[in-house]
């Protein structure tokens, strides 16, 4: 093991840090935004909403993220209608494809968590709101979501770390985030151990940071009492 390689490895890997952060945060936000409507559809009374949502979460959670990434990045370009569409400038970019795929993947997992939390909410809470004169939207925003998100906050903190780890797969479709940068450094130096030791440490610190942020957030919104 060559200690001399630690600093250059660190410097090279850090060139991809910003991209890792962008992919992680963008995919996480996308996942959260899509998860709620998916969760609501998952619990809807109408089978026209419920079944497609269930099929989506089943398919996404049941297949590997790397396969999904390849399908989106390499597969969508095979479809002429997509190449001719306004979305092509986005979908031809490996970074955007990574954000989209990881975000869609995260949404499926989060949707199931939210759907479960929605089912756990006592029906009396909604009925009390109805009796107090709240419409559906007001009920959702003022009564349901504050409780649901409090209960799934630990899982959301977990999810951002999973998304960060998922972002490492972006290197498989030419994205030079931290793992991509580490791989190029390895091809130059033939020092995989030193390189990935540094990369792992950076990911660990980043994960710890996310954990800390969500830990503080949990304490901030915690409901006092038994």
């Amino acid at each position, binding site marked *: 093991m060559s200690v001399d390689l630690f600093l250059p490895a660190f410097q090279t890997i850090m060139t991809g840090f910003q991209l890792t952060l962008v992919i992680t945060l963008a995919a996480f936000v996308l996942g959260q935004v899509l998860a709620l409507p998916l969760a609501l559809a998952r619990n809807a009374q109408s089978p026209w909403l419920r079944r497609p949502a269930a099929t989506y979460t089943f398919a996404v959670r049941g297949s590997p993220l790397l396969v999904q990434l390849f399908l989106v990045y390499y597969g969508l370009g095979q479809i002429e209608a997509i190449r001719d569409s306004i979305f092509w400038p986005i979908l031809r970019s490996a970074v955007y494809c990574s954000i989209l795929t990881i975000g869609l993947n995260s949404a499926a997992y989060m949707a199931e968590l939210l759907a479960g939390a929605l089912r756990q909410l*006592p029906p*009396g*809470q909604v*009925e*009390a709101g*109805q*009796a*107090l*004169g*709240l419409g559906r939207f*007001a009920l959702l925003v*003022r*009564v349901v979501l*504050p*409780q649901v998100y*409090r209960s799934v906050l630990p899982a959301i903190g977990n999810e951002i770390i999973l998304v960060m780890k998922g972002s490492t797969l972006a290197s498989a479709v030419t994205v030079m985030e931290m793992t991509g940068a580490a791989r190029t450094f390895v091809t130059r130096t033939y020092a995989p151990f030193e390189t990935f030791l540094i990369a792992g440490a950076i990911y660990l610190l980043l994960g710890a940071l996310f954990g800390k942020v969500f830990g503080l957030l949990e304490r901030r*919104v915690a*409901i*006092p*009492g*038994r």
Partner: protein
Amino acid sequence: MSFLALENVTKNYGDHEVIKGVSFTAEKGEFVVFVGPSGCGKSTLLRMIAGLEDITGGDVQIDGKVVTHVEPALRQVAMVFQSYALYPHMSVFDNMAFGLTMVKTPKDEIRRRVNEAARILQIEPLLDRKPRQLSGGQRQRVAIGRAIVRNPKLFLFDEPLSNLDAELRTQMRVEIARLHRSLGVTMVYVTHDQIEAMTLADRIVVLRGGIVEQVGTPTELYDRPANIFVAGFIGSPKMNFLATEVASVAPGALTLRHPAFAGGTLTLDRDTSGLAPGAAVTVGLRPEHLHMDGPATLSLTVDFCENLGGATQIYARPDGGETITAVAPGRPELAAGSPVGFRVAPEHIYLFDAQGKAIAAPR
């Protein structure tokens, strides 16, 4: 004109009819209690009044207006739930103010109403706390407070005390009665606890299997039950029932045969129309109406006794018959296996026909 009226209300879940043509009225300021065993439809009926449950057939009127298809919020009713249904992420103040906040009530008015309700319910020191920091009784008060601040025309209570312990239940029962007296608003209250029903109600609606068995004041239901079900449901301990048969019928007099009767038969001055020798008649006897003094109506053998402190619950039976419960004041010395006689005043002997309908009601 009645303040609350249900007209032939029905409710179906698919092919299953759970409410079977219920009709009843409540006057302004009246305290009405729906009582009945689990699954009899009392909570469903209450939820239909609130608008939380669709009505399959019939109509609901509140204050002269048909509200059958009106949104819950527009019915001017307030409901107190069994689970309290408080919002854990809001303070007590915000929970109570929530309904008013949503209809853009001015802040000063909200504060005034919440503080007034908190004063009535003695929860002023709790306004800054979250529901999880409260005891069961305090949570129930907050749930009632949330209903009070809306100044509803009608209060609906869905088994509000069933999650509380016995002592607190008694205390809250008194509080609710006091609240009704001070507010003077019509209240409809659901319970399966007939003691709650007897102590709180101006009128009781006894339900079974989605139909109304009897409506009346607590005294009417206790003294003149319409059938065996009501007789057995109202009163604690439960009424004793003896399956007897008519031995003989004379004008205005009826003789019944059962091994529990002293001498094997019992003759009563009753209207005997429609009764013939051999007909099945069920005799109902309330435990508190069985006295150990005077000439014995019943001749039994002691099974065992329960010392309740100020009274004794005696379980006794005739030869080969079903157990009869009696409540005697004090602590009579009775050994298991010893004979015991009970006197029952004729007016406290209830009779029911083969269909369970009350016959020849005590005069």
